[in-house]
């Protein structure tokens, strides 16, 4: 177990959000989790197209041991189900990704996307309202102008805090295939969106135009061999972005090289180990997530069984590889049958890039301390949800004799999967999404 400081971190339960019901409504399934740049706000998106934003309470001066709790700040319906009449296709309202914009003024801005449409939302607070209109009553009814005998100047009076979310831009009709990623550029003016075959570049102010910067669609669709699975801008080089593929490769592109970045500047690929070849080699090598480190020197990729850290200066192989759940390698057949092999796990860095985290099954999630070469498996469950209860490390027994407190592979619940996790940009606070619950853990403060 490890955290930012290099000392051993003990993770404690802080909060859990969501229904306690075991019967999960499909619309409540969490599909994305994201902290904003300060960590004060935490946004979740769900399958029903809703966005819920939590805000951290300011630290209580009388209780310095406790960090502020996250409470609901705003809830709004971001996307609705749509129907493409031309193709006779229903477009799901599920929120695939949320990305925060850096804060420029009092309001907060975020991008949320479903399969086809990206929306820019403004979240603003209102804590005062004007009172004393001449032509309107207090309840909003219009006054008959002939009854007005005196004039007064309206004044602002304090009111209960109201958080409003309003869609400021809608970026639509630019994607034929399903959008899997959005990423805000470090210039804070542009962002990219990626679907299975294309990456588009947008300006945040312009909705009727976008530039196609990557297109891997073959002339003949029957020749298709790979799709784009994730894309991200470099954290501080505004001309650089990467995209990962279903074949396990990552391409780094420089937008200064040409308008269409079909030719990569760098290609990151690790040769396959022939002894591991199976029916499912292609599936498990498909990259489900790619994330740059905060310092921009490394990037991390997640495939079905492992997490890999790449040095941007070395294309031939990753510098670090962490096995998330290698015990599943012998179960790939069953996981293919029940579709679990197609699960897309995400991964994230901690604030100083010393620890990485990713999810697994049975509501387990894993952390890998890069410096101390230690890893830990923790569980997000209601059972260990007592306030400030320290999480106990878990262990899965791959085969052979099962030790006490170990869980055998066959008793893992593959319906309980943690696909989305997020790490506070500065503190040791993590948000872990189970199917329909959001768990918040933090490190134990003495």
């Amino acid at each position, binding site marked *: 177990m490890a955290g930012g400081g290099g000392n051993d971190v003990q993770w404690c339960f802080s909060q859990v959000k969501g229904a306690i019901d075991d019967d999960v409504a499909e619309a409540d399934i969490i599909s994305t989790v994201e902290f904003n740049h300060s960590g004060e706000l935490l946004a979740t998106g769900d399958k029903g197209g809703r966005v819920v934003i939590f805000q951290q309470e300011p630290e209580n001066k009388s209780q310095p041991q406790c960090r502020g709790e996250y409470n609901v700040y705003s809830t709004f319906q971001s996307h609705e189900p749509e129907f493409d009449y031309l193709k006779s296709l229903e477009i799901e309202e599920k929120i695939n990704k949320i990305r925060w914009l850096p804060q420029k003024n009092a309001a907060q801005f975020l991008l949320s996307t479903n399969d086809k449409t990206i929306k820019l939302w403004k979240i603003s607070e209102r804590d005062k309202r004007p009172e004393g209109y001449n032509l309107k009553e207090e309840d909003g009814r219009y006054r008959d102008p002939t009854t007005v005998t005196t004039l007064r100047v309206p004044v602002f009076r304090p009111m209960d805090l109201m958080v409003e979310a309003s869609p400021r831009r809608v970026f639509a009709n630019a994607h034929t295939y399903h959008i899997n990623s959005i990423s805000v550029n470090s210039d804070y003016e542009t962002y990219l969106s990626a679907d299975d075959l294309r990456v588009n570049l947008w300006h945040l102010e312009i909705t009727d135009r976008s530039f196609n910067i990557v297109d891997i669609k073959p002339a003949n669709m029957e020749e298709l061999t790979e799709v784009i699975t994730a894309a991200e801008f470099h954290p501080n080089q505004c001309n650089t972005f990467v995209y990962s593929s279903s074949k396990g490769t990552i391409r780094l592109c420089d937008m200064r090289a040409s308008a269409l970045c079909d030719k990569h500047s760098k290609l990151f690929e690790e040769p396959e180990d022939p002894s591991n070849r199976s029916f499912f080699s*292609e599936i498990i090598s498909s990259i489900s997530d790619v994330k740059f480190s905060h310092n921009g020197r490394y990037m991390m990729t997640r495939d079905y069984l492992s997490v890999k850290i790449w040095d941007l200066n070395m294309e031939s192989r990753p510098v670090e590889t962490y096995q998330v759940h290698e015990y599943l390698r012998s179960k790939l057949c069953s996981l293919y049958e029940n579709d679990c092999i197609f699960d897309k796990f995400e991964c994230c860095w901690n604030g100083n890039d010393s620890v990485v985290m990713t999810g697994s099954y049975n509501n387990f999630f894993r952390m890998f301390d890069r410096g101390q070469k230690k890893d830990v498996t923790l569980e997000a469950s209601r059972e260990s949800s007592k306030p400030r209860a320290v999480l106990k490390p878990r262990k899965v027994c791959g085969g052979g004799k099962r030790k006490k407190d170990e869980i055998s592979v066959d008793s893992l619940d593959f319906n309980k999967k943690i696909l989305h996790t997020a790490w506070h940009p500065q503190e040791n606070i993590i948000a872990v999404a189970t199917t329909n619950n959001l768990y918040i853990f933090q490190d134990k403060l003495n």
Partner: protein
Amino acid sequence: MINTMECAMDAQNLISISLRKIHNSRTQRGGIKLHKNLLVSYVLRNAKQLYMNEKYAEIYRMQQYEEVMTVCNEIQELNPLDLAEDIVEASGDCCSHVAGSPLIMEPASVCCALPASNHPAHTPHQQQQLQATAACSAAGLALQNEEVCKETNSAFFRSCCAEAYPVTDCDFSSLSAVHCNKTTVLDLDTHVVTTVESGYLHQDCCAVQCQGAQAPAKKRKFDFGCYAAESEEVPDFTPCKRARFEDFYCPHSEQLDTSNISNLISIFGSGFTGLVSRQADSEFSLNGQFCSKQTLASLGAWTRAIVAF
């Protein structure tokens, strides 16, 4: 080589399951997921490869077994004393190394058999015996040449696959320098050398590249032992043999000639090639039970699995 040990399921089951997934994806909310279907097509292709390899290996084994049995039966009919004389004569004609027992012949004796058979002085009996031993030798030769490639010691880079379908360990592309499961067969009758790769003719590899290509012009020549058919002494043998050969290909007594196998392979050639049928078939029964044997046997019954984008 695909590690099948980890998988309790056989290739047919996987094919079944994969087809079901593709079918179900058509009715899923949100439209067909390109990524998932592409991955499923890879599994389908891998399972198909294994299935075809196993089938052809089986065919080859059966052919060999029958051939050896035929030759042995013929040899048993001959006079043992004559045999010994013939062998001494034969060995005198060339410098081959012949083992003591008449039934054990080195593969190199094939070359001896050829000039020997041209000797007009040889009796028909001797001719037949030489041919018989040559058959054994040919079998031996074929056996020797059969190398099931368990290759890729070299690193395997997926991204380098510019071809229509990804390169695998058992790549049957004619462009590939590495041949897997290659069998060289010498037809002693016509003296034609045929290369069979991964169970089908070299030309079939070309057929894979050109999708939808027609069946190879050359007929398979597994029946290198069938030269015996030419001989008048055993006239009935050939029809039985040929029938058995065809029977194997049509386990359900349906039409599945070699051209269909080539088409099947070309259909499965690339990621999506195999899944977009040229003919939409409304008769394909979708009871939820996809029988892979049925699927392989009745190629005309492919449905349009993926809507063209």
